[in-house]
Protein backbone atom coordinates (compact mmCIF):
# COMPACT_ATOMS: atom_id res chain seq x y z
CA UNK A 1 0.00 0.00 0.00
CA UNK A 2 2.78 2.40 0.91
CA UNK A 3 4.78 1.43 -2.12
CA UNK A 4 1.70 2.01 -4.22
CA UNK A 5 1.19 5.43 -2.69
CA UNK A 6 4.80 6.50 -3.15
CA UNK A 7 4.83 5.32 -6.75
CA UNK A 8 1.63 7.18 -7.46
CA UNK A 9 2.93 10.35 -5.82
CA UNK A 10 6.06 10.29 -7.93
CA UNK A 11 4.00 9.75 -11.05
CA UNK A 12 1.80 12.66 -10.05
CA UNK A 13 4.75 15.01 -9.67
CA UNK A 14 6.06 13.92 -13.07
CA UNK A 15 2.68 14.54 -14.66
CA UNK A 16 2.45 17.94 -13.02
CA UNK A 17 5.88 18.92 -14.38
CA UNK A 18 5.08 17.78 -17.89
CA UNK A 19 1.73 19.56 -17.85
CA UNK A 20 3.31 22.74 -16.56
CA UNK A 21 5.82 22.66 -19.40
CA UNK A 22 3.14 22.03 -22.01
CA UNK A 23 0.90 24.69 -20.58
CA UNK A 24 3.66 27.27 -20.30
CA UNK A 25 4.98 26.75 -23.80
CA UNK A 26 1.52 26.52 -25.27
CA UNK A 27 0.19 29.62 -23.63
CA UNK A 28 3.25 31.58 -24.70
CA UNK A 29 2.40 30.71 -28.27
CA UNK A 30 -1.10 32.18 -28.15
CA UNK A 31 -0.13 35.61 -29.10
CA UNK A 32 2.09 38.35 -28.00
CA UNK A 33 0.55 39.72 -24.81
CA UNK A 34 2.73 42.75 -25.26
CA UNK A 35 0.51 43.92 -28.09
CA UNK A 36 -2.49 43.77 -25.81
CA UNK A 37 -1.13 45.61 -22.86
CA UNK A 38 0.88 48.38 -24.35
CA UNK A 39 -0.87 51.29 -25.96
CA UNK A 40 -0.07 51.58 -29.67
CA UNK A 41 1.10 55.13 -29.08
CA UNK A 42 3.79 54.03 -26.64
CA UNK A 43 7.29 55.02 -27.58
CA UNK A 44 9.82 52.24 -28.20
CA UNK A 45 11.51 53.15 -24.94
CA UNK A 46 8.29 52.68 -22.99
CA UNK A 47 7.69 49.38 -24.74
CA UNK A 48 11.17 48.20 -23.79
CA UNK A 49 10.56 49.16 -20.21
CA UNK A 50 7.20 47.41 -19.96
CA UNK A 51 8.56 44.30 -21.63
CA UNK A 52 11.42 44.26 -19.19
CA UNK A 53 9.14 44.78 -16.21
CA UNK A 54 6.88 41.93 -17.19
CA UNK A 55 9.87 39.72 -17.84
CA UNK A 56 8.91 39.07 -21.43
CA UNK A 57 12.31 39.83 -22.93
CA UNK A 58 14.13 36.84 -21.53
CA UNK A 59 14.49 33.59 -23.49
CA UNK A 60 11.67 31.10 -23.14
CA UNK A 61 13.54 28.57 -21.04
CA UNK A 62 14.71 31.28 -18.64
CA UNK A 63 11.15 32.43 -18.21
CA UNK A 64 10.10 28.84 -17.59
CA UNK A 65 12.78 28.28 -14.93
CA UNK A 66 11.84 31.51 -13.21
CA UNK A 67 8.23 30.43 -13.40
CA UNK A 68 9.01 27.05 -11.83
CA UNK A 69 10.98 28.64 -9.03
CA UNK A 70 8.09 30.89 -8.28
CA UNK A 71 5.53 28.11 -8.66
CA UNK A 72 7.14 26.04 -5.98
CA UNK A 73 6.79 28.99 -3.65
CA UNK A 74 3.22 29.53 -4.71
CA UNK A 75 3.93 32.64 -6.76
CA UNK A 76 2.60 32.19 -10.23
CA UNK A 77 2.99 35.73 -11.42
CA UNK A 78 0.60 38.62 -11.40
CA UNK A 79 -2.42 38.76 -13.62
CA UNK A 80 -1.72 41.03 -16.57
CA UNK A 81 -5.19 42.48 -16.32
CA UNK A 82 -5.95 42.71 -12.61
CA UNK A 83 -2.38 43.10 -11.40
CA UNK A 84 -2.84 40.87 -8.36
CA UNK A 85 -1.17 37.49 -7.91
CA UNK A 86 -2.75 35.00 -10.27
CA UNK A 87 -2.97 32.28 -7.66
CA UNK A 88 -4.71 34.62 -5.26
CA UNK A 89 -7.24 35.54 -7.93
CA UNK A 90 -8.02 31.91 -8.56
CA UNK A 91 -8.26 31.00 -4.90
CA UNK A 92 -10.64 33.90 -4.36
CA UNK A 93 -13.02 32.49 -6.93
CA UNK A 94 -12.53 28.83 -6.10
CA UNK A 95 -14.99 28.51 -3.20
CA UNK A 96 -17.89 29.54 -5.44
CA UNK A 97 -17.05 26.84 -7.97
CA UNK A 98 -16.50 24.24 -5.26
CA UNK A 99 -19.84 25.06 -3.71
CA UNK A 100 -21.61 24.72 -7.04
CA UNK A 101 -19.85 21.46 -7.87
CA UNK A 102 -20.57 19.96 -4.45
CA UNK A 103 -24.24 20.87 -4.69
CA UNK A 104 -24.44 19.30 -8.14
CA UNK A 105 -22.81 16.05 -7.05
CA UNK A 106 -25.02 15.91 -3.97
CA UNK A 107 -28.14 16.20 -6.10
CA UNK A 108 -26.80 13.59 -8.49
CA UNK A 109 -26.16 11.05 -5.73
CA UNK A 110 -29.25 11.73 -3.58
CA UNK A 111 -31.60 11.37 -6.54
CA UNK A 112 -29.53 9.13 -8.77
CA UNK A 113 -29.16 6.10 -6.56
CA UNK A 114 -32.84 5.70 -5.58
CA UNK A 115 -33.96 6.33 -9.17
CA UNK A 116 -31.42 3.87 -10.50
CA UNK A 117 -32.51 1.27 -7.95
CA UNK A 118 -36.12 1.67 -8.97
CA UNK A 119 -35.28 1.43 -12.65
CA UNK A 120 -33.27 -1.69 -12.01
CA UNK A 121 -35.82 -3.43 -9.82
CA UNK A 122 -38.87 -2.59 -11.90
CA UNK A 123 -37.51 -2.11 -15.41
CA UNK A 124 -40.83 -2.47 -17.13
CA UNK A 125 -42.86 -0.12 -15.02
CA UNK A 126 -43.77 3.26 -16.45
CA UNK A 127 -41.62 5.04 -13.90
CA UNK A 128 -38.71 2.74 -14.58
CA UNK A 129 -38.85 3.26 -18.29
CA UNK A 130 -39.25 7.00 -18.04
CA UNK A 131 -36.26 7.16 -15.70
CA UNK A 132 -34.14 5.45 -18.31
CA UNK A 133 -35.40 7.64 -21.14
CA UNK A 134 -34.84 10.66 -18.92
CA UNK A 135 -31.29 9.60 -18.18
CA UNK A 136 -30.52 9.48 -21.87
CA UNK A 137 -31.84 13.01 -22.17
CA UNK A 138 -29.61 13.90 -19.25
CA UNK A 139 -26.41 13.37 -21.15
CA UNK A 140 -27.70 14.11 -24.62
CA UNK A 141 -28.71 17.63 -23.86
CA UNK A 142 -25.90 20.11 -23.91
CA UNK A 143 -25.55 21.58 -20.44
CA UNK A 144 -25.49 25.16 -21.64
CA UNK A 145 -28.72 24.85 -23.60
CA UNK A 146 -30.56 23.29 -20.67
CA UNK A 147 -29.25 26.13 -18.54
CA UNK A 148 -30.68 28.65 -21.00
CA UNK A 149 -34.02 26.84 -21.03
CA UNK A 150 -34.09 26.80 -17.25
CA UNK A 151 -33.46 30.52 -17.13
CA UNK A 152 -36.21 30.99 -19.70
CA UNK A 153 -38.76 28.87 -17.92
CA UNK A 154 -38.11 29.45 -14.25
CA UNK A 155 -36.73 32.95 -14.19
CA UNK A 156 -38.25 34.76 -17.14
CA UNK A 157 -41.61 33.07 -17.64
CA UNK A 158 -42.50 32.11 -14.09
CA UNK A 159 -40.35 34.60 -12.26
CA UNK A 160 -39.82 32.21 -9.36
CA UNK A 161 -36.05 32.28 -9.27
CA UNK A 162 -33.33 34.80 -10.03
CA UNK A 163 -31.69 34.66 -13.43
CA UNK A 164 -28.05 34.88 -12.48
CA UNK A 165 -25.42 35.53 -9.90
CA UNK A 166 -24.73 34.21 -6.46
CA UNK A 167 -26.84 35.03 -3.45
CA UNK A 168 -25.87 36.36 -0.05
CA UNK A 169 -22.95 34.59 1.48
CA UNK A 170 -22.07 33.66 5.02
CA UNK A 171 -18.53 33.03 6.19
CA UNK A 172 -17.76 29.67 7.75
CA UNK A 173 -14.19 28.78 8.64
CA UNK A 174 -12.96 31.59 6.44
CA UNK A 175 -14.85 30.46 3.34
CA UNK A 176 -17.90 32.21 2.09
CA UNK A 177 -20.76 29.86 1.41
CA UNK A 178 -24.11 30.81 0.05
CA UNK A 179 -26.35 27.86 0.71
CA UNK A 180 -27.05 28.88 4.28
CA UNK A 181 -29.14 31.87 3.31
CA UNK A 182 -32.52 31.68 1.64
CA UNK A 183 -31.41 34.15 -0.97
CA UNK A 184 -28.31 32.10 -1.57
CA UNK A 185 -30.37 28.93 -1.96
CA UNK A 186 -32.60 30.59 -4.49
CA UNK A 187 -29.57 31.54 -6.54
CA UNK A 188 -27.85 28.20 -6.35
CA UNK A 189 -30.77 25.92 -7.23
CA UNK A 190 -30.88 26.49 -10.97
CA UNK A 191 -27.15 26.27 -11.70
CA UNK A 192 -26.71 23.31 -9.35
CA UNK A 193 -29.54 21.35 -10.96
CA UNK A 194 -28.21 22.28 -14.38
CA UNK A 195 -24.74 21.05 -13.52
CA UNK A 196 -26.09 17.90 -11.85
CA UNK A 197 -27.93 16.52 -14.89
CA UNK A 198 -24.93 14.84 -16.44
CA UNK A 199 -23.64 13.04 -13.32
CA UNK A 200 -27.24 12.28 -12.33
CA UNK A 201 -27.85 10.48 -15.61
CA UNK A 202 -24.61 8.55 -15.18
CA UNK A 203 -25.34 7.50 -11.60
CA UNK A 204 -28.83 6.35 -12.57
CA UNK A 205 -27.53 4.25 -15.42
CA UNK A 206 -24.69 2.83 -13.39
CA UNK A 207 -26.99 1.88 -10.50
CA UNK A 208 -29.47 0.31 -12.85
CA UNK A 209 -26.81 -1.66 -14.69
CA UNK A 210 -25.39 -2.83 -11.37
CA UNK A 211 -28.79 -3.97 -10.14
CA UNK A 212 -29.53 -5.75 -13.38
CA UNK A 213 -26.24 -7.64 -13.25
CA UNK A 214 -26.38 -8.47 -9.53
CA UNK A 215 -30.00 -9.57 -9.13
CA UNK A 216 -29.78 -12.84 -11.07
CA UNK A 217 -26.69 -13.97 -9.17
CA UNK A 218 -26.76 -16.98 -6.87
CA UNK A 219 -26.05 -15.28 -3.57
CA UNK A 220 -29.19 -13.17 -3.97
CA UNK A 221 -31.22 -16.32 -4.52
CA UNK A 222 -29.72 -17.84 -1.37
CA UNK A 223 -30.54 -14.72 0.61
CA UNK A 224 -34.13 -14.89 -0.53
CA UNK A 225 -34.29 -18.62 0.10
CA UNK A 226 -33.06 -17.96 3.62
CA UNK A 227 -36.20 -15.95 4.11
CA UNK A 228 -34.67 -12.48 4.38
CA UNK A 229 -37.00 -9.58 3.84
CA UNK A 230 -36.83 -8.17 0.34
CA UNK A 231 -35.89 -4.76 1.63
CA UNK A 232 -32.88 -6.14 3.44
CA UNK A 233 -31.85 -8.16 0.44
CA UNK A 234 -31.89 -5.10 -1.74
CA UNK A 235 -30.43 -2.56 0.62
CA UNK A 236 -27.75 -4.68 2.15
CA UNK A 237 -26.79 -7.32 -0.35
CA UNK A 238 -27.43 -5.75 -3.71
CA UNK A 239 -26.60 -2.15 -2.88
CA UNK A 240 -23.34 -2.87 -1.10
CA UNK A 241 -22.05 -4.85 -4.01
CA UNK A 242 -22.78 -2.23 -6.58
CA UNK A 243 -21.45 0.64 -4.47
CA UNK A 244 -17.83 0.19 -5.44
CA UNK A 245 -18.04 1.28 -9.06
CA UNK A 246 -20.56 3.96 -8.09
CA UNK A 247 -18.26 5.46 -5.50
CA UNK A 248 -15.32 5.53 -7.87
CA UNK A 249 -17.38 7.03 -10.67
CA UNK A 250 -18.81 9.69 -8.37
CA UNK A 251 -15.29 10.57 -7.31
CA UNK A 252 -14.20 10.99 -10.89
CA UNK A 253 -17.39 12.85 -11.70
CA UNK A 254 -16.53 15.43 -9.08
CA UNK A 255 -13.51 16.37 -11.12
CA UNK A 256 -15.48 16.41 -14.33
CA UNK A 257 -18.18 18.54 -12.76
CA UNK A 258 -15.52 20.99 -11.63
CA UNK A 259 -14.41 21.29 -15.25
CA UNK A 260 -17.90 21.51 -16.69
CA UNK A 261 -18.75 24.23 -14.21
CA UNK A 262 -17.14 26.52 -16.80
CA UNK A 263 -20.26 26.26 -18.91
CA UNK A 264 -22.82 26.64 -16.15
CA UNK A 265 -20.94 29.58 -14.72
CA UNK A 266 -21.02 31.28 -18.10
CA UNK A 267 -24.76 30.81 -18.48
CA UNK A 268 -25.72 31.79 -14.94
CA UNK A 269 -22.99 34.38 -14.40
CA UNK A 270 -21.85 32.46 -11.33
CA UNK A 271 -18.69 34.15 -10.02
CA UNK A 272 -16.40 31.14 -10.02
CA UNK A 273 -13.13 29.93 -11.53
CA UNK A 274 -14.73 28.82 -14.77
CA UNK A 275 -15.85 32.24 -15.87
CA UNK A 276 -12.42 33.53 -14.93
CA UNK A 277 -10.64 31.14 -17.24
CA UNK A 278 -12.83 31.91 -20.25
CA UNK A 279 -12.28 35.61 -19.80
CA UNK A 280 -8.56 35.10 -19.29
CA UNK A 281 -8.26 33.04 -22.45
CA UNK A 282 -9.99 35.73 -24.44
CA UNK A 283 -7.85 38.47 -22.93
CA UNK A 284 -4.62 36.51 -23.21
CA UNK A 285 -4.02 36.92 -19.48
CA UNK A 286 -1.22 34.39 -19.52
CA UNK A 287 -0.40 34.03 -15.79
CA UNK A 288 -4.02 33.41 -14.85
CA UNK A 289 -4.49 30.81 -17.59
CA UNK A 290 -1.34 28.98 -16.56
CA UNK A 291 -2.21 29.17 -12.87
CA UNK A 292 -5.75 27.91 -13.48
CA UNK A 293 -4.53 24.99 -15.55
CA UNK A 294 -1.96 24.03 -12.95
CA UNK A 295 -4.46 24.24 -10.10
CA UNK A 296 -6.97 22.16 -12.05
CA UNK A 297 -4.38 19.55 -13.05
CA UNK A 298 -3.35 19.32 -9.41
CA UNK A 299 -6.94 18.85 -8.29
CA UNK A 300 -7.43 16.12 -10.88
CA UNK A 301 -4.31 14.27 -9.89
CA UNK A 302 -5.42 14.43 -6.27
CA UNK A 303 -8.91 13.21 -7.06
CA UNK A 304 -7.59 10.32 -9.11
CA UNK A 305 -5.19 9.37 -6.34
CA UNK A 306 -7.94 9.41 -3.73
CA UNK A 307 -10.24 7.39 -5.97
CA UNK A 308 -7.54 4.79 -6.59
CA UNK A 309 -6.82 4.45 -2.88
CA UNK A 310 -10.52 4.31 -2.10
CA UNK A 311 -11.01 1.61 -4.70
CA UNK A 312 -8.32 -0.58 -3.21
CA UNK A 313 -9.74 0.00 0.27
CA UNK A 314 -13.30 -0.83 -0.72
CA UNK A 315 -12.65 -3.83 -2.90
CA UNK A 316 -10.86 -6.54 -0.93
CA UNK A 317 -10.08 -8.37 -4.14
CA UNK A 318 -7.82 -5.53 -5.28
CA UNK A 319 -6.04 -5.37 -1.94
CA UNK A 320 -5.51 -9.10 -1.69
CA UNK A 321 -4.45 -9.26 -5.30
CA UNK A 322 -1.70 -6.75 -4.55
CA UNK A 323 -0.57 -8.66 -1.48
CA UNK A 324 -0.14 -11.81 -3.49
CA UNK A 325 2.23 -10.10 -5.88
Amino acid sequence: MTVFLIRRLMQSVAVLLVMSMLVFVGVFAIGNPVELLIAPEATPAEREETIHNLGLDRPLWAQYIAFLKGAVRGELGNSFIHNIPALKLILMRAPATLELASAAILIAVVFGIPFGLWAGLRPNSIFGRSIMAGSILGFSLPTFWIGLMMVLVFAVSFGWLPTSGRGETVRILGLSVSFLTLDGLKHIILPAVNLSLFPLALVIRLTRAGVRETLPLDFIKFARAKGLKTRRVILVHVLKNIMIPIVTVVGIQFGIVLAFAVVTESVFAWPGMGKLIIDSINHLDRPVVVAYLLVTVLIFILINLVVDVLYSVLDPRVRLGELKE
Partner: protein
Amino acid sequence: MSTGDNPFRRFVSDFAESKLAVGSLIAFTLVLLAALLAPWISVQNPYDLAQIDILDGRLRPGSTGMNGLTYWLGTDDQGRDMLSAIFYGLRISLGVGAMSGIIALVVGSIVGITAAYVGGKLDTLLMRLVDLILSFPIILIALILLAVMGRGVDKVIFALVVRQWAYFARIVRGAALVEREKEYIEAARSLALSRPRILFRHLMPNCIAPLIVVGTVNVANAIQIEATLSFLGVGLPVTEPSLGLLISNGYEYILSGQYWISVFPGVALLIAVGSLNLVADQLRDVLNPRLQT
Protein backbone atom coordinates in the same frame (compact mmCIF):
# COMPACT_ATOMS: atom_id res chain seq x y z
CA MET B 1 -36.96 -14.04 -29.90
CA SER B 2 -36.75 -14.82 -33.57
CA THR B 3 -33.79 -16.64 -34.98
CA GLY B 4 -32.33 -15.81 -38.35
CA ASP B 5 -30.21 -18.02 -40.49
CA ASN B 6 -27.26 -15.78 -40.12
CA PRO B 7 -25.97 -13.63 -37.26
CA PHE B 8 -26.69 -10.39 -39.09
CA ARG B 9 -30.40 -11.11 -39.37
CA ARG B 10 -30.46 -12.08 -35.73
CA PHE B 11 -28.71 -8.84 -34.86
CA VAL B 12 -31.24 -6.80 -36.82
CA SER B 13 -34.22 -8.55 -35.24
CA ASP B 14 -32.70 -8.15 -31.75
CA PHE B 15 -32.17 -4.49 -32.41
CA ALA B 16 -35.69 -4.04 -33.71
CA GLU B 17 -37.16 -5.34 -30.45
CA SER B 18 -37.02 -1.86 -29.01
CA LYS B 19 -39.38 0.44 -30.84
CA LEU B 20 -37.67 3.40 -29.22
CA ALA B 21 -34.37 2.42 -30.79
CA VAL B 22 -35.90 1.93 -34.20
CA GLY B 23 -37.66 5.28 -33.93
CA SER B 24 -34.38 6.91 -32.92
CA LEU B 25 -32.62 5.36 -35.87
CA ILE B 26 -35.23 6.83 -38.19
CA ALA B 27 -34.96 10.21 -36.46
CA PHE B 28 -31.21 10.23 -36.81
CA THR B 29 -31.39 9.25 -40.46
CA LEU B 30 -33.69 12.21 -41.05
CA VAL B 31 -31.25 14.50 -39.26
CA LEU B 32 -28.41 13.10 -41.35
CA LEU B 33 -30.34 13.65 -44.56
CA ALA B 34 -31.21 17.19 -43.52
CA ALA B 35 -27.55 17.89 -42.92
CA LEU B 36 -26.35 16.35 -46.16
CA LEU B 37 -29.01 18.02 -48.30
CA ALA B 38 -28.86 21.36 -46.51
CA PRO B 39 -27.96 23.53 -49.51
CA TRP B 40 -30.87 22.09 -51.48
CA ILE B 41 -33.63 22.09 -48.88
CA SER B 42 -32.93 25.46 -47.28
CA VAL B 43 -34.83 28.43 -48.60
CA GLN B 44 -31.79 30.65 -48.25
CA ASN B 45 -28.10 30.27 -47.63
CA PRO B 46 -27.78 31.94 -44.27
CA TYR B 47 -24.09 32.58 -44.74
CA ASP B 48 -24.34 34.35 -48.03
CA LEU B 49 -24.47 37.99 -47.01
CA ALA B 50 -26.30 38.96 -50.17
CA GLN B 51 -29.31 36.90 -49.18
CA ILE B 52 -29.96 38.19 -45.71
CA ASP B 53 -31.39 41.49 -44.67
CA ILE B 54 -30.82 42.86 -41.23
CA LEU B 55 -34.21 44.56 -41.29
CA ASP B 56 -35.65 41.05 -41.13
CA GLY B 57 -33.89 40.46 -37.87
CA ARG B 58 -35.53 38.87 -34.86
CA LEU B 59 -38.83 38.09 -36.50
CA ARG B 60 -41.14 35.69 -34.74
CA PRO B 61 -41.59 32.12 -36.04
CA GLY B 62 -44.05 32.02 -38.88
CA SER B 63 -43.66 35.62 -39.95
CA THR B 64 -42.95 36.75 -43.47
CA GLY B 65 -39.93 38.74 -44.42
CA MET B 66 -39.39 41.71 -46.73
CA ASN B 67 -38.59 39.45 -49.66
CA GLY B 68 -41.67 37.27 -49.29
CA LEU B 69 -40.01 34.32 -47.59
CA THR B 70 -41.84 32.72 -44.70
CA TYR B 71 -39.59 32.23 -41.73
CA TRP B 72 -41.04 29.12 -40.13
CA LEU B 73 -38.76 29.26 -37.14
CA GLY B 74 -38.14 32.96 -37.07
CA THR B 75 -34.93 34.83 -37.75
CA ASP B 76 -31.88 35.63 -35.69
CA ASP B 77 -30.48 39.07 -35.00
CA GLN B 78 -28.80 39.25 -38.43
CA GLY B 79 -31.93 38.37 -40.33
CA ARG B 80 -30.98 34.76 -41.09
CA ASP B 81 -33.75 32.22 -41.46
CA MET B 82 -33.47 29.96 -38.40
CA LEU B 83 -34.55 26.83 -40.25
CA SER B 84 -31.87 27.23 -42.91
CA ALA B 85 -29.30 28.17 -40.32
CA ILE B 86 -30.15 25.02 -38.38
CA PHE B 87 -29.74 22.81 -41.46
CA TYR B 88 -26.35 24.31 -42.22
CA GLY B 89 -25.40 24.13 -38.57
CA LEU B 90 -26.30 20.45 -38.40
CA ARG B 91 -24.02 19.92 -41.36
CA ILE B 92 -21.04 21.34 -39.50
CA SER B 93 -21.91 19.69 -36.21
CA LEU B 94 -22.40 16.24 -37.70
CA GLY B 95 -19.36 16.69 -39.89
CA VAL B 96 -17.09 17.60 -37.00
CA GLY B 97 -18.53 14.83 -34.87
CA ALA B 98 -18.21 12.13 -37.51
CA MET B 99 -14.74 13.24 -38.63
CA SER B 100 -13.32 13.33 -35.12
CA GLY B 101 -15.00 10.03 -34.28
CA ILE B 102 -13.61 8.24 -37.30
CA ILE B 103 -10.08 9.57 -36.89
CA ALA B 104 -10.08 8.80 -33.17
CA LEU B 105 -11.38 5.32 -33.89
CA VAL B 106 -8.69 4.58 -36.47
CA VAL B 107 -5.84 5.98 -34.40
CA GLY B 108 -7.09 4.38 -31.19
CA SER B 109 -7.64 0.97 -32.77
CA ILE B 110 -4.18 0.87 -34.29
CA VAL B 111 -2.57 1.86 -31.00
CA GLY B 112 -4.74 -0.52 -28.99
CA ILE B 113 -4.12 -3.54 -31.18
CA THR B 114 -0.42 -2.87 -31.36
CA ALA B 115 -0.18 -2.50 -27.60
CA ALA B 116 -2.08 -5.74 -27.01
CA TYR B 117 -0.16 -7.76 -29.56
CA VAL B 118 3.32 -6.52 -28.81
CA GLY B 119 2.82 -6.44 -25.06
CA GLY B 120 5.60 -5.75 -22.60
CA LYS B 121 7.04 -2.28 -22.11
CA LEU B 122 5.31 -0.75 -25.13
CA ASP B 123 1.98 -1.92 -23.81
CA THR B 124 2.61 -0.48 -20.35
CA LEU B 125 3.83 2.83 -21.74
CA LEU B 126 0.89 3.25 -24.10
CA MET B 127 -1.66 2.32 -21.47
CA ARG B 128 -0.15 4.76 -19.00
CA LEU B 129 -0.52 7.45 -21.64
CA VAL B 130 -4.12 6.39 -22.19
CA ASP B 131 -4.85 6.53 -18.47
CA LEU B 132 -3.30 9.97 -18.26
CA ILE B 133 -5.32 11.35 -21.12
CA LEU B 134 -8.55 9.84 -19.86
CA SER B 135 -8.08 11.21 -16.38
CA PHE B 136 -8.76 14.73 -17.64
CA PRO B 137 -12.20 15.69 -18.84
CA ILE B 138 -12.49 16.46 -22.49
CA ILE B 139 -13.65 19.98 -21.97
CA LEU B 140 -10.51 20.86 -20.09
CA ILE B 141 -8.20 19.39 -22.72
CA ALA B 142 -10.18 21.03 -25.50
CA LEU B 143 -10.07 24.38 -23.70
CA ILE B 144 -6.31 24.20 -23.27
CA LEU B 145 -5.65 23.17 -26.86
CA LEU B 146 -8.00 25.68 -28.38
CA ALA B 147 -6.68 28.44 -26.16
CA VAL B 148 -3.27 27.69 -27.61
CA MET B 149 -4.20 27.00 -31.22
CA GLY B 150 -7.04 29.41 -31.75
CA ARG B 151 -10.36 28.74 -33.45
CA GLY B 152 -10.99 26.65 -36.55
CA VAL B 153 -12.73 23.50 -37.73
CA ASP B 154 -9.53 21.49 -38.08
CA LYS B 155 -8.32 22.61 -34.67
CA VAL B 156 -11.56 21.57 -33.01
CA ILE B 157 -11.37 18.16 -34.66
CA PHE B 158 -7.75 17.86 -33.55
CA ALA B 159 -8.61 18.78 -29.96
CA LEU B 160 -11.39 16.18 -29.91
CA VAL B 161 -9.27 13.45 -31.47
CA VAL B 162 -6.35 14.05 -29.10
CA ARG B 163 -8.51 13.01 -26.20
CA GLN B 164 -10.96 10.53 -27.67
CA TRP B 165 -8.50 8.15 -29.31
CA ALA B 166 -7.66 6.93 -25.82
CA TYR B 167 -11.15 5.46 -25.33
CA PHE B 168 -10.85 3.39 -28.47
CA ALA B 169 -7.33 2.32 -27.66
CA ARG B 170 -8.39 0.98 -24.29
CA ILE B 171 -11.41 -0.91 -25.65
CA VAL B 172 -9.57 -2.43 -28.58
CA ARG B 173 -6.66 -3.46 -26.40
CA GLY B 174 -9.03 -5.25 -24.04
CA ALA B 175 -10.71 -7.13 -26.85
CA ALA B 176 -7.41 -7.86 -28.55
CA LEU B 177 -5.91 -9.28 -25.36
CA VAL B 178 -8.71 -11.81 -25.26
CA GLU B 179 -8.49 -12.68 -28.94
CA ARG B 180 -4.72 -12.95 -28.84
CA GLU B 181 -4.90 -16.17 -26.88
CA LYS B 182 -7.24 -17.88 -29.28
CA GLU B 183 -6.21 -20.69 -31.56
CA TYR B 184 -6.74 -19.04 -34.88
CA ILE B 185 -4.05 -16.52 -34.03
CA GLU B 186 -1.71 -19.33 -33.11
CA ALA B 187 -2.49 -20.93 -36.44
CA ALA B 188 -1.78 -17.70 -38.30
CA ARG B 189 1.52 -17.32 -36.50
CA SER B 190 2.55 -20.86 -37.30
CA LEU B 191 1.98 -20.05 -40.94
CA ALA B 192 4.70 -17.40 -40.55
CA LEU B 193 2.46 -14.57 -41.66
CA SER B 194 3.88 -11.12 -41.06
CA ARG B 195 2.89 -9.34 -37.87
CA PRO B 196 0.98 -6.46 -39.48
CA ARG B 197 -0.96 -8.96 -41.53
CA ILE B 198 -2.00 -10.95 -38.49
CA LEU B 199 -2.86 -7.77 -36.62
CA PHE B 200 -5.04 -6.21 -39.24
CA ARG B 201 -6.50 -9.07 -41.18
CA HIS B 202 -7.02 -11.61 -38.44
CA LEU B 203 -7.14 -9.90 -35.07
CA MET B 204 -8.80 -6.60 -35.88
CA PRO B 205 -12.04 -7.83 -37.48
CA ASN B 206 -12.88 -9.74 -34.32
CA CYS B 207 -12.54 -6.73 -32.05
CA ILE B 208 -15.08 -4.60 -33.86
CA ALA B 209 -18.24 -5.24 -31.83
CA PRO B 210 -17.44 -3.04 -28.80
CA LEU B 211 -16.07 -0.40 -31.15
CA ILE B 212 -19.47 0.06 -32.73
CA VAL B 213 -21.12 1.05 -29.47
CA VAL B 214 -18.30 3.27 -28.27
CA GLY B 215 -18.00 4.87 -31.69
CA THR B 216 -21.66 5.84 -31.76
CA VAL B 217 -21.57 7.36 -28.28
CA ASN B 218 -18.34 9.08 -29.19
CA VAL B 219 -19.83 10.85 -32.19
CA ALA B 220 -22.76 11.97 -30.05
CA ASN B 221 -20.38 13.33 -27.42
CA ALA B 222 -18.22 15.04 -30.02
CA ILE B 223 -21.24 16.88 -31.43
CA GLN B 224 -22.19 18.03 -27.96
CA ILE B 225 -18.70 19.11 -26.95
CA GLU B 226 -18.23 21.06 -30.17
CA ALA B 227 -21.48 22.89 -29.52
CA THR B 228 -20.38 23.68 -25.98
CA LEU B 229 -17.00 24.96 -27.11
CA SER B 230 -18.58 27.14 -29.78
CA PHE B 231 -21.02 28.49 -27.22
CA LEU B 232 -18.13 29.45 -24.97
CA GLY B 233 -16.45 31.21 -27.87
CA VAL B 234 -13.40 28.97 -28.17
CA GLY B 235 -14.66 26.51 -30.77
CA LEU B 236 -15.55 27.18 -34.36
CA PRO B 237 -14.97 30.67 -35.71
CA VAL B 238 -17.91 32.99 -36.39
CA THR B 239 -17.76 32.23 -40.09
CA GLU B 240 -18.79 28.61 -39.56
CA PRO B 241 -22.49 28.09 -38.82
CA SER B 242 -22.21 25.98 -35.67
CA LEU B 243 -25.36 25.32 -33.67
CA GLY B 244 -23.51 26.30 -30.50
CA LEU B 245 -22.72 29.68 -31.97
CA LEU B 246 -26.37 30.21 -32.92
CA ILE B 247 -27.40 29.43 -29.38
CA SER B 248 -24.86 31.78 -27.89
CA ASN B 249 -25.99 34.51 -30.27
CA GLY B 250 -29.50 34.07 -28.99
CA TYR B 251 -28.47 34.17 -25.37
CA GLU B 252 -28.77 37.91 -25.07
CA TYR B 253 -32.27 37.90 -26.50
CA ILE B 254 -33.72 35.33 -24.16
CA LEU B 255 -34.28 37.78 -21.39
CA SER B 256 -36.42 39.91 -23.70
CA GLY B 257 -38.58 36.99 -24.66
CA GLN B 258 -37.17 36.33 -28.14
CA TYR B 259 -36.60 32.72 -27.32
CA TRP B 260 -36.55 31.19 -30.78
CA ILE B 261 -32.97 32.10 -31.60
CA SER B 262 -31.68 29.86 -28.83
CA VAL B 263 -34.42 27.29 -28.42
CA PHE B 264 -34.70 25.81 -31.90
CA PRO B 265 -31.01 25.12 -32.56
CA GLY B 266 -30.96 23.42 -29.16
CA VAL B 267 -33.89 21.22 -30.11
CA ALA B 268 -32.06 20.25 -33.30
CA LEU B 269 -28.99 19.35 -31.23
CA LEU B 270 -31.15 17.38 -28.84
CA ILE B 271 -32.69 15.32 -31.61
CA ALA B 272 -29.35 14.63 -33.25
CA VAL B 273 -27.48 13.67 -30.08
CA GLY B 274 -30.38 12.02 -28.29
CA SER B 275 -31.34 9.73 -31.15
CA LEU B 276 -27.72 8.68 -31.57
CA ASN B 277 -27.43 7.89 -27.86
CA LEU B 278 -30.66 5.87 -27.89
CA VAL B 279 -29.43 3.85 -30.85
CA ALA B 280 -26.10 3.28 -29.10
CA ASP B 281 -27.97 2.17 -25.99
CA GLN B 282 -29.87 -0.53 -27.83
CA LEU B 283 -26.70 -1.58 -29.65
CA ARG B 284 -24.96 -1.97 -26.32
CA ASP B 285 -27.76 -4.12 -24.92
CA VAL B 286 -27.88 -6.28 -28.02
CA LEU B 287 -24.12 -6.79 -28.19
CA ASN B 288 -23.48 -7.26 -24.46
CA PRO B 289 -22.74 -10.92 -23.80
CA ARG B 290 -23.41 -10.57 -20.08
CA LEU B 291 -27.04 -9.64 -20.59
CA GLN B 292 -27.84 -12.44 -22.98
CA THR B 293 -29.69 -15.20 -21.16
